[in-house]
């Protein structure tokens, strides 16, 4: 398959801060690639370079074979961008926004109009089409913003954190819409800090941290990298966390991960259900009460933890989970 997006050695510095530190990436035609990483990992900077919004200090990038640095105007004809800040004009109606974008893609007056109506229908915004965007809900704005990226039926799409800040229902709705895009042949680079999102949508995942790719592969590849299964146990009583740790430490083949707030401990294991039985017996004999038990394949969160030592999803608002009693909110 043809390579549509290609970047090597991208470096971007803002004073002391290194946003991109030699990032490489490659996206094949007709696939969805997710850039997964915590806030500040360099995801938005990477998208900004590839969409010609900023110039990197070092490195090269091409989109559909066209050099982003030497021919940005040509690149812009081929791409659609939907940013994390819902880049639509709040004083304009949904229709006016899409119509304007169509005109600026030089679709022509008639085509721009019909395309705007078509997209509003498809994104379930037809009823709100002639209302100013400032009256829209967050989910509606995101849908409109996403529609904006699709106005010109661009072959290469960039979606920068398309669902950040949305509730689960709106998020699922957007996922469904995004999937249909690629079924229609588009190539899509998506950034996200939601592991579930990468899991649901992406063919390939690039885990990035501090401006560098730290892992690359299909979702299954990444899960295999950390190997084994996980036992996840939630104790009923917070005071039992230390005991739970002790028991699981004996069974684990790697480091434990714990979260005090949710009273959960996760242990990588290799013995499957047999191991689980032994662990449960140990809990029983220590009289530690359990409210939830799961034996599962590693999730992308586990992958991220294993790779960076920090959780991607929780890095935004809570400190990285660690052994209970040492850190975390609400401790002692």
């Amino acid at each position, binding site marked *: 398959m043809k390579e549509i997006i290609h970047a090597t050695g991208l470096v971007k510095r803002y004073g002391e801060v290194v946003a991109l530190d030699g990032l490489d990436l490659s996206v094949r035609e007709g696939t969805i690639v997710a850039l997964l990483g915590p806030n500040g990992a360099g995801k938005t900077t990477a998208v900004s370079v590839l969409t010609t919004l900023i110039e990197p200090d070092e490195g090269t990038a091409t989109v559909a074979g066209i050099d982003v640095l030497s021919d940005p105007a040509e690149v812009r004809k081929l*791409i659609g961008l939907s*940013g994390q800040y819902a880049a639509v*004009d709040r004083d*304009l109606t949904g229709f006016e926004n899409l119509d304007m974008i169509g*005109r600026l893609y030089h679709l022509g007056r008639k085509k721009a109009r019909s395309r705007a109506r078509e997209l509003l229908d498809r994104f379930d915004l037809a009823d709100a089409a002639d209302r100013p965007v400032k009256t829209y809900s967050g989910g509606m704005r995101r849908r409109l913003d996403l529609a904006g990226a699709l106005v010109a039926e661009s072959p290469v799409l960039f979606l920068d954190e398309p669902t950040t800040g949305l509730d689960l229902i709106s998020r699922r709705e957007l996922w469904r819409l995004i999937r249909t895009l690629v079924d229609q042949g588009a190539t899509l680079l998506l950034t996200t800090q939601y592991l579930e999102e990468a899991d649901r949508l992406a063919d390939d995942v690039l885990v990035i941290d501090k401006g560098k790719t730290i892992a690359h592969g299909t979702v299954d590849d990444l899960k295999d990298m950390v190997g084994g299964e996980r036992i996840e146990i939630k104790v009923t009583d917070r005071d039992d966390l230390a005991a739970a740790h002790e028991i699981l430490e004996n069974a684990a083949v790697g480091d434990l991960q714990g979260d005090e707030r949710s009273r959960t401990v996760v242990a990588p294991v290799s013995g499957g259900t047999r191991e689980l039985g032994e662990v449960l017996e140990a809990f029983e004999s220590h009289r530690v009460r359990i409210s939830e038990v799961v034996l599962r394949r590693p999730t992308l969160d586990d992958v991220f933890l294993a790779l960076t030592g920090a959780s991607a999803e929780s890095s935004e608002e809570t400190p990285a989970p660690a052994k209970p009693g040492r850190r975390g909110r609400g401790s002692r």
Partner: protein
Amino acid sequence: MNFLSALGDGLVIARRNLIKLKRVPEVLVFVLLSPIMFVLLFAYVFGSAIDIPGGSYREFLMAGIFGQTVVFGATFTGAGLAEDMQRGIIDRFRSLPMSRAAVVFGRTASDVIYNIITLTVMATAGLIVGWRIRGSLLDALAGFLLLLLFAYSVSWIMALLGLSVPSPEVLNNASFIVIFPMTFIANTFVPAESLPTVLRVFAEWNPISSLVQATRELFGNIPPGTPEPASWALQNPVIYTVSCACLIIAVFAPLAVRRYIRVAKKT
């Protein structure tokens, strides 16, 4: 990027700015209400306080109010751009295959329309409070065109400023400090001759003075018997104003467009 499609892009942006006139109350206040307020305030507060030999101060004042208002109106250009830069919409524009100059050209163009509305409203308010055009209609039309041209040139200065400040508020405050004295150290409200020497020289060569002088002449609002102004600028106000406006556009339009492209790359 050929010229026609760049022009088309500019018009699309201008149209978008004009839609906001209907939707955003602050814009409406700025474009419609504040000019009425200016006319009434000056006409009734100052208009009856000062005597102009052989004429009416209220008539003398109108050209000054026109001039001051359209020059102040230019801050709108800067504030609009500063606001665009602050919001996400600018990223959308930058990622589109549109002309790099369209956002700035579109903004200055839509502000000409704002100014036309403002001048229409002010002229109507002026006529109601007793201002009259005493020259020919063609001259009067030339007067309004001159006001629009000069305001357009100041728009470009403000566009550059608007692209250089972190937020619209900063621009409003900064431009106030510059524009306020510029419009007052002029013949806008009092004859330039009555000012102390340093200020008088400044006022005599201030293009806002020549703008006001020119419109006053074109509206026929100079009372008979008024002495000939001392500076060349005020003796040939139309030529001087048009030259200043062209010079300002020639300098600031390229700077503003370059600034937009540079800001676009830096983020």
